[in-house]
């Protein structure tokens, strides 16, 4: 039984970590984690709705 982790996962936009549990040469379980958070949901709260497009397009 082995566990592998791939971090950083490249050629994607953003930061991603993949962990996989391997038994007998097969992946039996896997986890993905987004390893970056900015809280844009909290940033757009109470803002002028007309400018929210500009913030959210920079996700």
């Amino acid at each position: 039984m082995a566990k592998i982790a791939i971090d950083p996962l490249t050629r994607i936009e953003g930061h991603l970590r993949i962990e996989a549990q391997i038994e007998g040469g097969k992946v039996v379980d896997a986890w993905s984690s987004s390893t970056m958070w900015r809280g844009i949901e909290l940033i757009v709260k109470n803002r002028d709705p007309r400018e929210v497009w500009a913030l959210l397009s920079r996700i």
Partner: protein
Amino acid sequence: MQDESLFSDLSKRGISRRNFLTFCSTMAATLGLQSTVVPQIAEALEKKQKPYVVWLEFQDCAGDSESILRSTKPTIAQLVLDVISLEYHETIMAPSGKNAEKSLNDVVKNHKGKYIAIVEGSIPMKDGGVYCCIGGKTAIDMAKEVCGNALATIAVGSCASYGGVAAAAPNPTGAVSVKQAVPNATVINLPGCPMNSENLTATVVHYLTFGALPQCDKEGRPLFAYGKRIHDNCERRTHFDAGQFVRKWGDDGHRKGWCLYEMGCKGPQSYMNCPTIRWNEGTSWPVMAGHGCIACGQPQSWDALGSMYTRLPNVPGSGYQTTADKIGLGVAAAAAAGVAVHAAIRSSKSKSEDKK
């Protein structure tokens, strides 16, 4: 440093000598230098070896990477950035995981103090930096190691330069700029959302030619790109001076390309070279496309200048012509009044210029 010089790569890629020199002239112009330095730039690019570059992404949207990569045709500028020895860039590199980390560690270890670090995205400081981790390391630890040991760090985009989007109120993750996170690093800021790839190219060319980073303002921004106010170089400026404003999206003035100041344009508070170099290979820029400037290259632009569509208060000089027109309605008085108003405009203009 790599063995091959830049030009040997360009000639292999079918870039003619003539095109290469045209590119050198464009770079000189972008940097605000006289044409006499063109041979110096050309010589440096031909002879100097390619610098090692690592590109780190922290709290980013890859917008600055896109700004570099998304070009409709390969330009020489793109090639210049292509042929620097880009050893690490998460979004475009082939290796993943441990092999990716190795590429980065090798440069930091083997070329300490000689490589250029480019950083895209802000660095979260809150809660021990847990809001951005790469390969199990926090962004703050990575930045300290990579930027702290670099010859110089180029912060690309407003997030790396000022904190940007992530640092907009209430800044949930305690996001800061590269310079704030690693105060001892040599950092040059190329803000903008995204930064303009022409400015990154010009900064790299300046470094290769003169062996030094370009002169900067107090915000750490190179003067060649951020020394002039958008409002002063705007193609709609004459409409501002004439009091011809867009009052509603799609109105007659909007269709005629009048000034967007009343619609919330932040050009009067923004320092960047968008009106002169434009975007997408000089095709257009936001104001040309019909939307006001959002001051994306200014510190804390999401909070500091009010809502995007709220008019900036009291920009000196607005509506001169409106007054002139009102006075000019009286036919007999028109000529004399016109001259008087013109004189008043001249005097108030020079006053406002004196204040700067």
